[in-house]
Each structure stands twice: as C-alpha cells, then as structure tokens.
C-alpha cells in the first residue's frame, strides 16, 4: 500500500464525513420536496375545476358536468358507520389486553395476531368482505357491507393506538383508585379511560383518515363508480370519494384528470380538517392532565 501523509488522510476522512452529511441532508430535502410538488401539482390541476356546481353536482358521463355529491355523501356514511363499529370494539380489545389479560400465551397470541392483521393488504380485507358480508350475510353491495369491511381494515390501528394510550397512564392512578375501594371496572371507566382519551382520540382520527382514503377494499367489494342518487340509508348502493377519483384517473381523457384532481383537493381538505382536529384534541385535552 502506498504511503499516505497523515495530514492528507485526515483531510480525506473529513471530506468523506462532510460529503456523507450532505448526502443525508439531500435525501431529507427530497422527502420535503416530494410533498410540496405533490400538493402543488394537485392544486394546479384541481383548483380551476373546484366550484359549487362540482361540489353539489351529481355524477355525469361528461367531465364538464361531473360532480361529487353522491360519492362525498357515501364517504361520510362510510366513515360514520366505520367509526361506530370500530371504536367500541377496538377500545374494548385494547382494554382487555392492557387492563384485564395477564401476561399469558393467549395474550401473546392475540397481540401477535393484531400485529399481523395490521400488515394484511387492504384489498385482502375487500375479498373477505366480498365473501363474508356481500355474499354470506347477503348484505349486497351496500354501505353497511362497505363500512363493516372498512371497520376490519382500521380495527388494528384503533387497537394499537388505544393500547399505547392506556400504557401511558401511570400505574399510580390505578393503585390509588384500588386503594379507595374501587373495583377493576370502576377504575378503568372512571380513571384510566378518561386519562387515556386524548391519546385514543388521536388514534381514532388516524383510523378515520385511513378509512376515508381507502379505495382498494371498496373496489373489491364492488363499490359503484357511478351512482345517480345520494344514498340515504345504510342499505343503499354506494360509491366513495377515492373510488370515483380512481375511476376518473383511469380514463384516457385529460378533462377527467382535472375532475379527478378537483376530487383529490376535496379529499385532502377533509383529511387535513380531520388531522387538525387530532392536533387540537392532543393539545387541548393533553394539557389538563397533571401528572
């Protein structure tokens, strides 16, 4: 090996270190840049098409007349029912795992199972919904079948978030409650759950956001890309905001792409409102807790 002056070696190592730091910085900047480009691109294409007629209009085969009201209402039905199903069951499961089940093989199995369910592709839930809710339970392609399927998709998210929130409640609260003679359920209901609520709410909002953006399970269920009416009952046929965006994006005409972009602006706006609520809840209720 050729002899290298110690000073040159030192300079080389310093240069390598700086280059690497720059490379890491560049990667991080790229992540931020991607989000900016994504948002600008969608706004650029979508904003010109966004008007009251688009928001209140029904679906149409002509891009200039197409509106999103039926799909927007469908999506609100879906996330409403999904929340109704998944939150009690999800929080219940978390309470069972954190507050009731002792460390056992069974608890470990349930926990492992939930972690695995969180990783199952959402379209597989769609196939489950098709086989179970649409065919076996004969719910047809109804809002109810869609909401039940979406509930299964988001259930692991709710459970895992609620568990984390419950774990953050200090044990001193539980011990103090027991010391005053409260039963286990009284301790959970009056002390632990209220203390864990901000954390649980954050997880719930995350789950609702996921349910709102999911198209794959609904497409597998056979959600309509075109409905002529605004659904008024859980047994009505349905569409969904991401499903019609998918349909519009898949068409060759660029006019439809602009309509899709306008739909995306609406979808992202609802998502941002939901997340702003999550931040508000975390901040507003978080500061009342005094431990």
């Amino acid at each position, binding site marked *: 090996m050729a002899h290298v002056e110690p000073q040159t070696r030192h300079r080389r190592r310093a240069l390598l270190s700086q280059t690497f730091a720059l490379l890491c910085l560049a990667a991080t900047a790229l992540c931020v840049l991607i*989000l900016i480009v994504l948002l600008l691109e969608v706004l650029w294409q979508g904003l010109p098409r966004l008007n009251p007629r688009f928001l209140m209009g029904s679906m149409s085969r002509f891009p200039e007349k197409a509106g999103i009201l039926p799909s927007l209402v469908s999506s609100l039905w879906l996330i409403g029912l999904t929340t109704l199903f998944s939150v009690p069951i999800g929080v219940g499961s978390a309470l069972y795992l954190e507050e009731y089940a002792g460390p056992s093989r069974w608890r470990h199995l349930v926990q492992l199972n939930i972690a695995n369910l969180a990783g199952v592709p959402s379209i597989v839930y769609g196939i489950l919904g098709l086989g179970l809710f649409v065919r076996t339970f004969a719910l047809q392609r109804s809002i109810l079948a869609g909401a039940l399927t979406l509930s299964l998709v988001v259930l692991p998210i709710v459970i895992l978030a609620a568990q984390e929130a419950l774990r953050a409640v200090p044990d001193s609260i539980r011990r103090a409650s027991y010391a005053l003679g409260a039963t286990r359920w009284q301790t959970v209901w009056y002390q632990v759950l209220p203390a864990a609520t901000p954390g649980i709410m954050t997880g719930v909002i995350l789950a609702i956001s996921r349910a709102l953006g999911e198209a794959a399970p609904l497409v597998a269920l056979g959600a309509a890309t075109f409905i002529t009416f605004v659904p008024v009952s859980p047994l009505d046929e349905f569409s969904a905001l991401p499903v019609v965006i998918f349909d519009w994006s898949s068409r060759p005409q660029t006019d439809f792409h602009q309509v899709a972009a306008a739909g995306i602006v609406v979808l992202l706006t609802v998502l941002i409102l939901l997340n702003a609520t999550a931040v508000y809840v975390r901040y507003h209720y978080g500061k009342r807790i005094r431990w």
Partner: protein
Amino acid sequence: MNAESSAAEVVGLRAVPWDGAGHGGVRRKVVEGLVQAGLFGCALLSIFTTVGIVLVLAVEAFEFFREVPLFDFLTGTEWAPKLAGKFGVLPLVSGTLMVTAGAAMVALPIGLLTAIYLSEYASSEVREVVKPVLEVLAGVPSVVFGYLAVVTVSPWIRTFFPSAGVFNVASASIVVGVMILPMIVSLSEDVLRSVPRSLREAAYALGATKFDVTVKVVVPAAISGIVASFLLALSRAIGETMAVALAAGNSPNMTLNPLEAAQTMTGYIVQVSQGDTPAGSLEYRTIFAVGLALFVSTMFINILAQWFVARVRMKYD
C-alpha cells in the same frame, strides 16, 4: 374545589358515583363479570377476523384448485383467464416483484439516509419540520399517488424514454417508492435513536469521524431494526393496490423492462372486481386464489420482520 375531593384530585383521580355496593357486592360482581366477558369478546373478534380471512380465501381457492392444478397455477407463465383459460400466476408475480423491486430502489436509499440525517445530524428544529411532513406524506391516500403516477410521473418518464408506454412499471415503482418512504424513515429513525449514546462516545474517543461513527458503529448496531423496517415496507409495496392498478396497466406480461406495462396481483383483483363477474364462476374464483397468494406472501414477510424486531428488543431492552 371543595375540601372533600381535594386529596383525590391532587393525585389525578376523578369522582366515582356510589354504585350501591355493600350488600355482599353481588351487583358489583355481576357487572364486573359481564364487562370482562364483553371485553374478551372484543379481543376475540380480531382472532375471528384472521380465521375469517383464511377460511374465505381457502374455501373459494380450494374450489379453484379443483379445476386448475396447483402446480400449473404456480409454474404457468401465461395468465389469460378469460380469453385462453390459462391460469399461470407467474406473470402477475413478476409484475408485483418488478414494482416492488423498483420501489425498493427508490425508497431504501433515500429512506435510510433521511433516517440517519434525522437521528444523527438534524437539529431539533429541523426534525420538528420534517417529521410532520413525513406524517402528512404517509397519510396521503394511495389513489392520489395513482393519479400522480398517471398524470405527472408517466409523461415525465416518456419525455426521457420515448419508447415507454402510457402505462409502465417504472411510474408505478416510483410512486410506490414514495408511498413506503415515510414508513422506512420513521421505523429506522426509531431504532437508530435507540442505539445507546455510549457506543457513539466510545467511537469518538477512539478518534472516529462522524461518518465512521454513523456508518461503522450506529448503523451496524441498529441493523436488525433497519432490516425489519425494509421488510415491512416491502410487504406494504407488494399489497399496494390503487396506485399500481392505475399506473402499471392491465397486461399480464413477463418482462424485465420497466418501461413496459405489466399487471400485479393486486391490479388483477381490481380489474376483475370492476367487471361483472358472476359469483361461483372460475374467473370469480381466481381473485380468491390470487388473494390467497398475496395474503400468504405478505404474512410471511411480516412475520420475518417481527422476528427481526424481537432481535432488536433483546439487544437493548
């Protein structure tokens, strides 16, 4: 605040209404028992979900494999269920692997470097800007990325490579790569930060540069967790649906050329679901067979990833 409740409120307890207990506590015991049973039922539902997935997929797939031999399904190189009655799944598998490999090439280096930057270099102010940005990126629905692949990325690829098709694997790979990026960054950053400070300080004391410390000490110490984050991201890429259904095209095509169209397993399921396929027909059952293949492969990768995560826990907990 009245004097009676003040002591309890100081420790953070809330008032509990009197439940009439004291006469042997029978009512209490009944309530406690019912509640526990109810919560147990909730937890049981997640087990039922898994059993349900396996049963629904297995029953219909079993019917499918009675008509199409499993061997032909796994080794056939032509997928044309409707036109030619050919049920070789390999073109769909190769489409899925092409998109996943492309996404990995985009996301793994950028994701790991970003995680290293956030964990080792960034000031807390920078972290407070970048982390929410990544959270927002992670929350963008898949269909939005599909739209971008078709409207933005694909035309951009076609200006550089005029031979590329309107639908191509490359555009799908790029957007899926962006979709799995936040996952890699946040999971890898967590493990990098969990590497004890003492390891870094020991390396500096031996005269190492920041590069040496990061690349030769911190990253190797966290490697199990980093591998786990890569695996979880790859499993997510395999199951990714709407973006690839829009961008990659609908032609089951065994090709290594990323500029050509292909079809993934998920893309095929979407295509069949959109048509009016009568329940019970062989074509209807293909989605259960393909779904089963998808479920088994992602499950396998996820379990492998959990094994790696358990290794990290053993090391530093």
